């Protein structure tokens, strides 16, 4: 039995109990939302261009009364290797008169990218930031989380989320993909982590996250700090730094930063949004001298995060760098055509990458 099943079953049972027992015969609201995208890559090193993937991600929301929300997102994707259908998340959220308890399979709340920015119609670039393509962060967890936020003043607030979940999720072929990079030991039965966020201004958020999972005699610990500055006039600057240790030894460092500016104030160009992004991922401190990594052929390892049409990155013996410069054309506030020049510096692979994304 995979690690997901006990929690999924418990979540389903608890959700059923909540819906049937806790909720009074109150009003219910159902909404179908979601997003989709199509990608096109044109390598500038001579390889043939082509469409590299399409996906459709329906999201179903069922609100029962004032305190319960059942939600899930399904990804139906074809990246050229056949049809993939996956469950991105499926949760029951319960309002505990202030804090919110979330049970089920939920997007990882560490950092800001996965939980808030990964949908293609929200992400300003056609792909994920570089550190999210090397597998040091799980996409989701199966377990329970408790979150809370409090207004300090009208303009300042503090947010927190803590979770307890199963061990690192397995990939589709049954291997514990996240830690595949570092060990072939089976994961322990649980992992934990959380994030604290502080809004000094409505426009400025600072966050700190931790994810910890034991692997036999070793602990995997990922720490990250993130920030976001968003001006309603169209300026959006955000980024994150990450550091992972395994058994106390540093095994990974990464960072990404992105700036975009929606040209609201320029009448003829108000639907355009130039974007720049920088990414850095370094697993060389670990992979360079480790026999286990060598036996795995670490360059072949693909991570939990999946490529989401973005092209996964091999975490090799040298640091990886990526520079992206692009522009988004907003056809509507929920429909965007993106074009980006993406340059993987250390392997000198420039690519023109386009994406049409929509949210609904």
């Amino acid at each position, binding site marked *: 039995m995979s690690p997901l099943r006990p929690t999924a079953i418990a979540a389903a049972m608890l959700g059923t109990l909540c819906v049937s027992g806790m909720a009074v015969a109150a009003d219910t*609201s159902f*909404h179908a939302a979601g997003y989709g995208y199509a990608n096109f890559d044109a390598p500038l090193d001579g390889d043939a261009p082509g469409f590299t993937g399409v996906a459709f991600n329906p999201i179903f929301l069922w609100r029962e009364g004032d305190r319960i929300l059942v939600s899930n997102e399904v990804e139906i994707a074809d990246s050229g290797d056949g049809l993939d259908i996956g469950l991105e998340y499926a949760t029951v959220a319960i309002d505990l*008169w*202030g804090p919110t308890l979330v049970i089920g399979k939920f997007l990882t709340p560490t950092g800001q990218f996965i939980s808030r920015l990964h949908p293609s119609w929200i992400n300003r670039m056609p792909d994920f930031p570089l550190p999210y393509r090397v597998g040091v962060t799980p996409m989701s967890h199966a377990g329970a989380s408790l979150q809370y936020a409090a*207004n300090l*003043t009208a303009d300042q607030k503090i*947010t*927190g989320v803590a979770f307890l979940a199963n061990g690192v999720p397995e990939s589709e072929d049954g291997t514990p993909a996240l830690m595949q990079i570092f060990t072939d030991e089976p994961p322990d039965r649980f992992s934990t982590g959380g994030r604290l966020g502080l809004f000094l201004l409505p426009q400025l*958020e600072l966050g700190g996250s931790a994810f910890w999972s034991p692997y036999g005699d070793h602990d995997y610990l990922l720490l990250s700090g993130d920030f976001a500055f968003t001006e309603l*006039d169209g300026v959006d600057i955000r980024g994150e730094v990450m550091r992972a240790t395994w058994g106390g030894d540093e095994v990974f460092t990464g960072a990404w930063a992105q700036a975009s500016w929606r040209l609201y104030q320029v009448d003829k160009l108000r639907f355009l949004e130039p974007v720049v992004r920088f990414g850095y991922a370094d697993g060389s401190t670990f992979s360079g001298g480790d026999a286990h990594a060598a036996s795995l052929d670490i360059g072949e390892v693909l991570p939990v995060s999946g490529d989401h049409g973005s092209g996964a990155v091999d975490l090799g013996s040298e640091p990886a760098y990526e520079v992206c410069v692009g522009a988004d054309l907003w056809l509507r506030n929920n429909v965007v055509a993106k074009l980006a020049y993406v340059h993987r510096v250390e392997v000198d692979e420039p690519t023109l990458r386009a994406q049409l994304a929509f949210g609904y």
Partner: protein
Amino acid sequence: MSPLRTAIIRTVLSSAALLSTGVLTTRTAKAGPELDGATVYQDNCGRCHMPRTPGDLSSAGWRAVAFHMRVTANLTKAEFDALEAFLAPPPATAEPGATSRPVESNPVLAGNCLRCHDSQRIQDAVDGGRTMADWTTTLDRMRTYGARITPEQADELARWLATDAQRSN
């Protein structure tokens, strides 16, 4: 147990204590700062994605989405309440004998502004004597939020709103 593991467990327990403190303070503290739903909507929804026009979804749809956003964006209870009141207000019941407000007669305003804002709020601003320059600033800001008004329509609407004929007092 390794020192690292001890430290992590201590951190998690501290976080749980912080969160449980939140439960207690939420139940006992006075209501937090007064929040405007439109501001909460612009500040929080616009932080990650282009904000959808409130008129895009039904009231029932917004009820589900507002809760979803509460979880995703980790909104405070006060923010959630203000957001829900803004996006999914209870159906208005017209008072017997009530007459329409002057601002409701403008088709551009009715087709755009009233999709998000209550007409009484706009009428109050008109009655307060706002100038054309004030309205131009407001409408420019609304255009950045996604209001589908051309610059020419914005100029005309600002001029129209600033005239005495639109006042109800």
